[in-house]
């Protein structure tokens, strides 16, 4: 009984630490991502990791204002988005597995929760019935909804690589098997998810989001901004887990080594990988997606192509075997 309880306590502690780490670092990653994108576009300024936290704090301290029409919906929708985003963040492993919800870390569940968070933000824009935010919200929904075919294809591709289709299962498999065989399809899958899911990879989507929230002020606005950052960061975490699953520590591995060092090392690796992911997203925004700005379906089409290519590579490899 005692080892069982100890394992549960350890899992709960790790889950709390994981959630705190992700929740605190989400605006930091977004600030660094924007700095990287600015540098790639030619601007020269020092990084300000806490800049986005300051924006959020400023928004939180402002007097709350919302449109009288649909006020009850506006009051709830950003918080719903935050809840869905946090639930998804709790399921995606950052530096270790073995957290309480690890058997729920199916990619379809994570993707569905993130989609729900995204739609809650869209409803925030639509709630007041105002023209500009409503139009922007509808357009953002049309652009962001294309994650769903990508998600279905990705889940099937992952289902062929993995026994149970969960991210925790992927990490476990990475510790016992050679992942280099499926590294390229997994990287393509990660690229597809980042392209379709992360709005930071598209300047037009960012402008749409700014328009969606322009009539909102106070804590509701701060929460909506934060939920959006969390959304982008969780998609990036999913992509990172797909590309480098072996960097995540398993609980039984931790038991064999000195725990503190192992944990710190895993967190350091996570931070490094997330920085790299931020750089990749910034590069996508500046060099890839900006090239097809005239065509709204460019990002979705590219993501769908990446997912199809991942499936084709995987199946072609299997056929050759």
């Amino acid at each position, binding site marked *: 009984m005692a080892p069982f309880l100890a394992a549960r306590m350890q899992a709960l502690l790790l889950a709390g630490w994981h959630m705190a780490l992700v929740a605190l670092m989400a605006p930091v990653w977004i600030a660094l991502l924007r700095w990287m994108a600015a540098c790639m576009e030619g601007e020269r300024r020092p990084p300000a990791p806490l800049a986005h936290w300051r924006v959020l704090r400023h928004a939180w301290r402002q007097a709350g204002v919302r449109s009288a029409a649909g006020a009850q919906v506006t009051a709830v929708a950003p918080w719903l988005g935050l809840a869905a985003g946090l639930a998804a963040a709790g399921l995606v492993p950052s530096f270790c597995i073995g957290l309480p919800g690890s058997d729920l870390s199916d990619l379809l569940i994570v993707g569905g929760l993130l989609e729900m968070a995204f739609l809650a933000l869209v409803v925030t824009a639509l709630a007041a019935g105002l023209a500009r935010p409503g139009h922007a919200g509808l357009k953002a929904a049309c652009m962001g909804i294309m*994650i769903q075919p990508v998600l279905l294809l990705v889940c099937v591709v992952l289902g062929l690589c993995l026994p149970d289709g969960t991210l925790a299962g992927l990490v476990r498999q990475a510790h016992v098997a050679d992942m280099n065989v499926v590294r390229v399809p997994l990287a393509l899958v990660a690229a597809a998810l980042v392209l379709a899911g992360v709005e930071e990879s598209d300047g037009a989507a960012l402008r749409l989001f700014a328009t969606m929230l322009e009539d909102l002020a106070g804590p509701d606005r701060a929460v909506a901004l934060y939920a959006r950052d969390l959304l982008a960061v969780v998609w990036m975490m999913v992509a990172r887990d797909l590309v480098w699953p072996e960097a995540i520590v398993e609980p039984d591995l931790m038991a064999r080594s000195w725990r503190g060092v192992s944990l710190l090392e895993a967190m350091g690796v996570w931070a490094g990988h997330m920085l790299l992911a931020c750089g990749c997203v910034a590069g996508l925004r500046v060099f890839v997606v900006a090239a097809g700005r005239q065509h709204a379906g460019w990002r979705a089409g590219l993501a769908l192509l990446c997912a199809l290519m991942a499936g084709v590579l995987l199946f072609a490899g299997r056929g050759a075997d």
Partner: protein
Amino acid sequence: MCVGLPRQARWARPVLAAGWLVVCGMAMACSHGCALPGGVVAWPGVFAGGPDVMLLVPLGLVAALARTPRDCSASFGAALVVIGGGVVSSIGAGWVLLALCRTPQAGRRHAPDMMALLLVAAGSRSPGHVDYLLPGLCWLATRGLLGLSLSLRVAPRGLRPFHMADIAAMIAAMSLWARLPAGTAVADMRWGGVLIVAGCLFYMTASWRALRAPDARRVLTGLAGGTGAIIITLAGLMLLARADDLPGMAACAQRTYLLVAGLLLAGVLGARALDVMECEAGALSLGRLGGLGVLMPRLSALFALALLAESGLPPLLGFSIIWMLLRLLASMPHAGGLAGEAPLLLALAVLGVGWAVRMLALVRIVAVMLCGRPRTPRGAGAADPPAQEQWAVLVAGLPIVLVSIWPGWWLALMQGAGGAGGWSGLAVVALTSPDGGAALHPARLCLFVALVGGVVAVVRWLACRAPTRQVAGWQQGAPGVPPWMVFGDPLTQVGPGNPARMLLDMVAAAPARQYFVRDYAHGLRLARRLVRVGAGRVAGAACWRRVPGPVVLLAACVGALMFIAWRGQG
């Protein structure tokens, strides 16, 4: 609904509802092995026993909540389909089709369905002769019941409004598919593949119709058409599993089929909520509705719950069905290599696009109906109905919540004593993939989401003590509504605010689309002229509207030859 049974017959409604609930209870008792002391009068050929009699449970719930004579009539017809043998079930399905038709023109469009039903009945009386044709005939016969169509048009004559009768029709169609006899392995395999591909296409077109429908009931009809397409896909998967002798996949497909029967309960909740909304806020045209989320918050929350269950987002039942369907499609037997997998990838892409369009249709209906502000004086006067009505809608929503959280009890109930686990299946809380490798725990998922939601609610309560100022938008003052405005005007769904057009813009730019449509129309005209010339009719003759007899004969011969060649290869 305000317009229901005649006033003299109002007393009959509770009696009918009680009667249907008794039927539900009797179906459950029969299915789980209870028998009357005198035994059961067997009447083979007229009544059919078997596990699919349990479809009377959702049907009983639908019929107990039916409000109009048409819904009651369709429920009786569907009950005939569920309990009847081959001929009686075809008669019942025809009855349901007639109950669905609101105009003689609509009845004429269902003539092929009736003929297919006749052939299905004939096939059931002479087993072994036309078994290889039965899946196709059943597809044709359930076309009208499930709302399957490849048409993208949303004209009122093509897309009927959604009522309880439509749910009864879907249950009848499910019963017809569930009792399809096994044909030869080759025929079943081919029909299975055809049905899966057709289901994916039907799903996409139904979602598109839901996206473009002009009123709330027709949006729900589009969504129900998507559910019908999933039924067709599952029927194809069951045929495939049976032909390839894969018991694990067949059992998984059967469980998913029963879960889809549970998803119909979300339609029941949506239809009940719409009935009350129609009573309170007037006609359900999307051009007139708006702001119901604020005016009737409780009813809107229940309606949003039904939409969430239909949407396929976690944690409700729609998500469990998508998860199972994905696992089933991935476990399909296929040829090795890229050529064998390409159809699976394409089918998944089509299904995914259909799912995305369905989600956009839900965003649209939430945006127009529940968000924004009222657009008509009648709409502005809407409010939550009296408590009794609210309780009725809440009770209609209870089954779908229960099935979503704990699908084990629904599967145990529907599979009966002859099922895999019987009542021991009650303890099963996880849904497993065909190979048993992956498992989904809906109850734990719901608990997890509720836990995180509760934490966020507490944080909100603790942190946001200062009241938020509510200000009127500028549109609520004197200025007139500009024509480009997205919401707040009956013309909201045209112009830049049209999500269907936004999607098309993502696929191809507007000028390219115009060229395409022009070329398509030109090609169509050219093909017509060619057909006329080929048939020996000079272009411009007065009788060009008639399809020439030789062409029909030729097409029929070619079709028959193709079918013979297709079947003869096995």
